C-alpha cells in the first residue's frame, strides 16, 4: 500500500519538475526570440496590394492570408537611421501607432518631391522621408498623409522568404519624380 503512495508521490514530483523546466525553457526561448526580433531581424507577413508586384502579386481574396508573402525585416538600419532611396521599409502608421505599413522610400530629407496631382513641389523636411507604394492606384502613402518622421521606421525589408517560388532579394528602385541635392 505504502509503495503505491510513494510511487504516486515520486511521479507527481517528476511531473512538477518537468513542468517547471518546460516553463523555464519556454520563457528563455521567448526572451531570446523577442531580443533577436527587436535587434537583428524578424519575419513578417505582408498584407494588401499596395506594393504589387513587389509583394503579393496575386490578391486573391478567396485565398486571403494563405497567399501572403512573408518577408525578412532587418533591424540593423535602426542603429543610425541611415536609409537610401528605394529602400522598402516597415513603419508605424502616423494616424494609428498600432498599425504597421510597408512602403518604399522615395525621398530623403532635403529632396524636392513633385506631386503630379496638384502640380506642386514640396521639400522633405529634416528627419522625415517620403514613402510611396509600388502600386500607386491602391496605396495609402505620403501622397495622403505627407512625409513621415524617420523615427517611425521599424525595419527594412531585404528578402522575400515565402512562398518558395518567390524567394528573392528586394532591389532598390529609383523613382523619376524627385530631385535630390547630390
Amino acid at each position: 500500500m505504502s509503495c503505491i503512495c510513494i510511487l504516486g508521490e515520486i511521479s507527481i514530483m517528476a511531473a512538477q519538475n518537468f513542468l517547471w523546466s518546460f516553463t523555464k525553457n519556454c520563457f528563455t526561448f521567448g526572451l531570446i526570440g523577442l531580443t533577436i526580433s527587436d535587434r537583428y531581424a524578424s519575419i513578417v507577413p505582408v498584407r494588401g496590394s499596395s506594393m504589387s508586384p513587389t509583394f503579393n502579386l496575386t490578391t486573391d481574396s478567396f485565398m486571403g492570408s494563405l497567399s501572403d508573402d512573408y518577408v525578412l525585416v532587418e533591424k540593423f538600419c535602426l542603429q543610425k537611421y541611415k536609409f537610401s532611396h528605394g529602400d522598402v521599409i516597415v513603419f508605424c502608421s502616423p494616424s494609428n501607432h498600432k498599425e504597421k505599413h510597408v512602403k518604399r522610400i522615395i525621398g530623403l530629407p532635403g529632396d524636392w518631391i513633385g506631386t503630379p496631382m496638384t502640380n506642386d513641389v514640396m521639400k522633405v523636411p529634416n528627419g522625415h522621408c517620403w514613402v510611396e507604394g509600388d502600386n500607386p492606384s491602391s496605396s495609402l502613402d505620403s501622397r495622403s498623409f505627407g512625409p513621415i518622421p524617420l523615427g517611425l521606421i521599424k525595419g527594412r525589408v531585404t528578402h522575400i522568404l515565402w512562398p518558395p517560388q518567390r524567394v528573392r532579394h528586394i532591389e532598390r528602385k529609383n523613382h523619376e519624380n524627385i530631385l535630390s541635392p547630390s
Partner: protein
Amino acid sequence: MRRWGLLAKEALTQTLTFARFFCLFHVTNHYLWSPTLVFGPSMLPTLNLTGDVILAEYVSHRVGRLGPGDIVFVRSPVDPNKIVTKRIVGVEGDRVTYFKPRNGDSCHTVVVPKGHVWIQGDNLYASRDSRQFGPVPYGLIEGKAFFRVWPPNSFGSLG
C-alpha cells in the same frame, strides 16, 4: 580528443548563459523600465540642467495609458538619433492653445490630429517642441518618466 569535446561544451554553456543574460537585459530595458540620464534646459525647473537620473518605464505607452501631464521620452521628429524629454500637453482631438515667447507673444490654437500628441517643454523660453515642429505621431513615444533617482535631495516620483 576528449579534452576538446569538454572545452567545446564548456564554451557553449558559457555562451548560452551570456545570451540569456543579454536577452533579459534587453527585454527589461525596452519593455519594463530603465534608468536614463537627462540633460538640457527645456524641462526646467522640473528637471535640472544636467546630472538627473530618471527611471523610464515602457509599459504605459504600449497599453495606451498616457495622457496630458505625463513626462515622456520622444524620438525627435527632426533627428531620429536623438531622444528628447517633454511633457504631453494634448492628445488626439484636444484643442491646444500655445504661444511662442520669442515671436511677440502671438497666441495660436490648434486641434491635435488623430494618432498624434502635442508635447511642450516646461521651460517655454528654451524648448524646441511641438510649437516648432508640430504635433508628433504617437509612434515616436519611447517611454514615460515616472521616478527621479538622482540627485538625492529630489528623490521621488515625478508628477
